[in-house]
């Protein structure tokens, strides 16, 4: 039959729309975790306080790393849109590596805190801190897995210029995770925290 489906929709791609709706929803998720943290940041019981323990210089470096991974992400996308598969892959891999570096830094940070006496059960503050940054870390990790999947697909010649939208959508997710970190870095780390 004749396809006369000229929908009066918004004219934007379904997939992208879905991703944006999802990101809108994620705002509420991270908002909840961040508020929980804020409410509890001064309740450190007998354990270390945030101000005692944060290593701002190190976290600054991680934040830079994540921020720059957003750049490489967008470069990857624009390469794909140009049909430049070599650079697509290059930037994809770079993004994933920078992400892995960030996560490695987080593992390092968590381990340090643990050694310094901040366990997951130490205080409401510690629980909230690990949960918030842990959730963010999990998001980043999922992002890395997606990037790697795209990378492998691309190696096998399956990531075509015509399907650049897939990459764009993964990119949206990646940038969102970055944006969340921008928030976390400022509000949780840089705004002066209570000390014991």
């Amino acid at each position, binding site marked *: 039959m004749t396809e006369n489906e000229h929908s009066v929709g918004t004219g*934007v791609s379904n997939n992208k729309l879905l991703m944006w709706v999802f990101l*809108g929803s994620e705002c509420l998720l991270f908002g909840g975790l961040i508020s929980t943290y804020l409410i509890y940041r001064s309740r450190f019981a007998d354990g270390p306080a945030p101000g005692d323990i944060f290593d701002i210089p190190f976290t600054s470096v991680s934040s830079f790393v994540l*921020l720059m991974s957003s750049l490489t992400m967008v470069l990857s996308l*624009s390469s794909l849109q*140009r049909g430049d598969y070599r650079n697509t892959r290059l930037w994809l891999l770079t993004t994933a590596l920078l992400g892995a570096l960030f996560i490695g830094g987080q593992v390092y940070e968590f381990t340090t805190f643990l050694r310094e006496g901040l366990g997951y059960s130490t205080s409401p503050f510690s629980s909230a801190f690990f949960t918030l940054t842990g959730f963010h870390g999990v998001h980043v990790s999922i992002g890395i897995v997606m990037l790697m999947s795209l990378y492998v697909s691309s190696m096998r010649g399956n990531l075509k210029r015509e399907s650049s939208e897939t990459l764009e959508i993964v990119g949206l997710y990646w*940038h969102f995770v970055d944006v969340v970190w921008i928030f976390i870095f*400022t509000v949780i780390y840089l705004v002066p925290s209570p000390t014991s």
Partner: protein
Amino acid sequence: MSKTEIEHSETSDDAGDEHDHPSDNKYIQIAIILAVITALEVATYFFEGMPGEILIPLLLIMMVIKFFYVAAWFMHLRFDSPLFTKFFVAGLVLATVVYVIALTVFEFWHKG
């Protein structure tokens, strides 16, 4: 940016979002701006003794600017359908309003 650099992908030309994606250089420019702001943010940490009343708004402003740049440029909100912006902003604003009220009820601001 030169238009020749940017070829349109075939899939998107019917979707009505026909627009110029910025060049890589533009992205790099944005990234540099972001990096500079981040550096400024971090610098406040080494400025001991800046009173909270100045420091915190300053940090928040810088944060919002960064946020804005990433969303507008890297996430293409500037060029894409305004609908996306609406969805994202809806979530963002709703989250902010709701949680700020919640924090207020918790008397979060009282402690300073």
